[in-house]
């Protein structure tokens, strides 16, 4: 089958680094009909009661932050459709007073402590995607990191 030969030709022999591999794949497998700049990864966060948010990662290891995270059902998928994570976030995940009832948010913010203390962490795709949720005064913040920093960076 011709396609099989093409696929063989699109193989990655000769690439001696991950960066070369990615460039090779990009160059050889792209096609003129779909000439769109390639993101490293594109994820979609669906939040109960709100529209989906597309998160486009330009490079491996990049972290994107989504604000105004409320308690409720959340789903993270690859934009191509594969569901990576689906769960319910609780008030204790997104509201500081519920997460740390004995501590002052202002004080923690002053010391930069809030960013060090996620209330929720999930590692997905064998560690290539990580979700961290941080509690806030009225809503939380979700940080999503895609890729392994420094390993596959093109």
């Amino acid at each position, binding site marked *: *089958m*011709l*396609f*099989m030969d*093409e*696929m*063989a030709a*699109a*193989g*990655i*022999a000769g*690439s001696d680094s*991950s960066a070369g*591999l*990615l460039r090779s*794949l990009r160059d050889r*497998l*792209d*096609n003129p*009909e*779909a*000439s*769109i700049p*390639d993101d*490293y*990864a*594109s994820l979609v966060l669906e939040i109960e009661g709100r529209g989906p948010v597309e998160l486009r990662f330009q490079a*491996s290891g990049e972290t994107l932050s989504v604000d105004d995270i409320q308690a409720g059902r959340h789903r993270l998928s*690859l*934009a*191509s*459709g*594969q*569901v*990576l994570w689906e769960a319910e976030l609780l008030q204790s995940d997104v509201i500081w007073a519920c997460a740390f009832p004995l501590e002052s948010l202002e004080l923690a913010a002053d010391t930069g402590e809030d960013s060090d203390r996620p209330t929720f962490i999930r590692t997905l*795709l*064998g560690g*290539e*995607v990580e979700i961290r949720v941080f509690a806030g005064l009225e809503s939380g913040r979700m940080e999503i990191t*895609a*890729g*392994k920093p420094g*390993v*596959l960076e093109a």
Partner: protein
Amino acid sequence: MDSLRHMSPADLRQLGLVELLDRVCNYADKRALDGFHERRRPFRWNGERHLRFIELVDRLRENALRGLSRFRSGDTEAVDRTCEILVDRFLSLPPEGAEQQDSRPSRNRTVDCRRHIRPYVRAYNRIVGREPHLGLLDRERLACRLLQRHVLEHFRRALAEGRRSAFRFCSRYEWKTDGGSLYLWFREDIAGAQRRAFLEANVEDVDPRRPGERQLVQSIIDSRIGRPRQVKIADCDEAGAPASASPHDLAVLVHRGIAAEGLASVVASEKVENIAQQRPAIQALGPVRLRELVLYIFERLDLGEYHDGEIAARFSLSAASFSRFAGSRWLGRLGQNSRTDLPDLWVNCARVLAADPRLAEVAEAAGVLQEVREIATGGFPPNSALGAPSRVSRGILPLFAVHG
């Protein structure tokens, strides 16, 4: 094994693209295939991201129609046919039953998406096998790109098939000019000398070396002479059939279809629309192959080269199955058997012939009208003079391939 075979929809949604399609190949998993078509968006096109398969097909269709000058003029039919073929290749699993439980693609010529998906899965696995350190995000992106290329490759091939199908009632003509040759399509019934005369009278200043010249000349031919077209049954209905008429109604087919399509195509359409009522071996062909079979049968009849064994082998049908469908040796049984023993296709033919006054006139001129009517209405003449099937259908095909 059962736990592997059966996965919940939620579990299927969490599979990577290749894993999902691998399930289609290995377990003929209809839910996995549905999940792919409904929820997966691995394709992109001209600035649009995350398209589903059917959306990509739609973009390809629009693109092909916009770029008609790159193909042949008036190729809407060819493009539509191309899309049908493409969708069939990625959407069709064999009917539920024993075959669906079998992980192997069916051996006959039924359209089976596993035949077309499995090479993609293998190609992906081969590349990933060479680069085991690829991360899962990279793999998924690779999977999407490979699938896009795979579908595009199939589209290109299907386009060639669609063109052949659209020009089914035409033949190619080489127009030799001082500057070289142009290869053009003409209706089959126009002789070579007439073709040359038409071209010389209607095309001025031809230069085969000029880009787009062939398309330009073909568009002149198509606009002034026309060419036989296939018209979908559904389109016939939309065009204003009586509200009470079913799209499968024979009268609708005959009155609206034959004028535009010709006998072979009308009979093929009727067979395809009623595929569920065909014998199992014929059903297993699937709609695309069944249409091809019927059209091929008429083509062989028209050429006077009708050999049961050759046609049966070509479509992977047993001799018995083919004999029941369109065998040529039923004449020897005249007077011994009932109408139900007649090959299905010839009964269909007779019904179509009897249902149209113009065709009936032709049948009468050929001396077979009485037999046609009796077969069509269920009677059967004990000493029929009805000739070989070719006698009925040959000659009628070009007569009723009216060109518009």
